[in-house]
């Protein structure tokens, strides 16, 4: 079962965020707020800045300028960062460890209560319980993605950041992920995810933001413009 967030929901606020790599702007004055319990999709072409923005939200990359904060976070931004689950492009798990060893390691690092029980629960949830003793190295792309998702959900985070999370998943896997995220959203977990095009996952979102060349060029909540942001119909 997907566990609802252990801490009170937290929002994410980007204020004038810029990221430069030398003379290249990855993000230009990005400002928006994801409210507590909101599910937002980030759309945009390759290189538009989605991944950089998600990595800044995960506090893995420091912005060149601007402010990132987590409104409503009990214990301040530092604590909010530790209550963040992040699914990135890479699976962020060790190839030389088994699925169970990987999840147990991260559960212990995150201070999850009853780590063994939580790991077993998640392995069943993502459909890898039978393969729990296999090295991650031997997994298919989809199975590796399931490990990545399970790792992000270990500590029942109040903020979920997902970078194209359905990559490598088969239709059943995508449906499972959609249902999981739906339950997380309904439990007031704040979700910010990047997607490509209109997908099963994007249907969960109540708001879509499009980035182009590192800047927010569209931000809408419902209706036809929501679809056009995802499908680039208005681009």
């Amino acid at each position, binding site marked *: 079962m997907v566990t609802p967030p252990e801490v009170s929901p937290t929002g994410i606020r980007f204020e004038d965020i810029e990221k430069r790599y030398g003379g290249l702007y990855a993000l230009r004055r990005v400002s928006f707020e994801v409210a507590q319990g909101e599910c937002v999709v980030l759309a945009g072409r390759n290189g538009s800045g989605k991944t950089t923005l998600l990595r800044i939200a995960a506090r893995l990359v420091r912005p060149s300028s601007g402010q990132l904060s987590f409104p409503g976070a009990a214990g301040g931004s530092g604590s909010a960062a*530790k209550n963040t689950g992040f699914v990135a492009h*890479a699976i962020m798990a060790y190839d030389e460890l088994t699925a169970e060893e990987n999840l147990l390691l991260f559960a212990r690092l995150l201070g999850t209560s009853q780590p063994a029980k939580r790991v077993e629960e998640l392995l069943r949830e993502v459909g890898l319980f039978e393969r729990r003793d296999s090295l991650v190295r031997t997994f298919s792309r989809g199975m590796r993605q399931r490990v990545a998702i399970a790792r992000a959900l270990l500590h029942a985070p109040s903020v979920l950041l997902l970078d194209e999370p359905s990559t490598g998943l088969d239709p059943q896997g995508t449906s499972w992920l959609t249902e999981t995220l739906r339950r997380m959203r309904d439990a007031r977990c704040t979700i910010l995810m990047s997607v490509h095009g209109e997908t099963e996952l994007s249907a969960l979102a109540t708001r879509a933001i499009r980035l182009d060349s590192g800047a927010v060029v569209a931000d809408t909540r419902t209706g036809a413009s929501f679809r056009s942001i995802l499908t680039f119909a208005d681009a």
Partner: protein
Amino acid sequence: MSLFSNTTALLGKELRTEFRSRELLTTTIVFILIVLVLFSFTFDPTSDESRRFGPGLLWLAFLFAASLMLQPCFLREQTNDTLDALRLSVADPFAIFLAKLAANTLFLLVTELLLLPVFAMMYNVKVLPVLHWVILVFFLGSLGVSIAGTALSAISAQARMRELLLPLLLLPLLTPILVASTEVTIALLDRSPYVQWKGIGFLGVFDVVFLTTLWLFGEYLLEE
């Protein structure tokens, strides 16, 4: 408490992955063995000559081997971006360094102790009467090498010429350890062995200073 529990969990991971692959230990042991054998051809290892040159050669071999051993320390974390996962999970990033340097110290120490009898036999020196002191010097020296090496490995892993950068940065930085460890080992292998406290004190201070620096600034080394 979380620093301790995070460090032990990560140390467990380091040991498990190494003992599963045995990549580092095997390579390092073979490398040191080759260096010791090659060095032994360059002079006639009579007892007096060995006492003079042996410890220096031994520590040089350890340093070269360490620069090989420390290279994959942070490079391994780049394969699946696992360093990001660690940064998101640990309460204190120092735990990542502590676990890695503890594992590196342990691997180096195991390698050194396994090769000590080979060195004693090939270079015709008696180490048994001063074994406990030799182990202390090995420990302090290996700890210093591991602290500096782990920090530099984190830096070089993000650089473009990473394979070349680590030895280039590491070997000059470790010169003081090489000199102090060699002098202490020479004194211990003397005809009338004695403990050179000045050298041991220097190694201890080196370890404390570098460990404190790593504790203070280590977090910045992990950032992109």
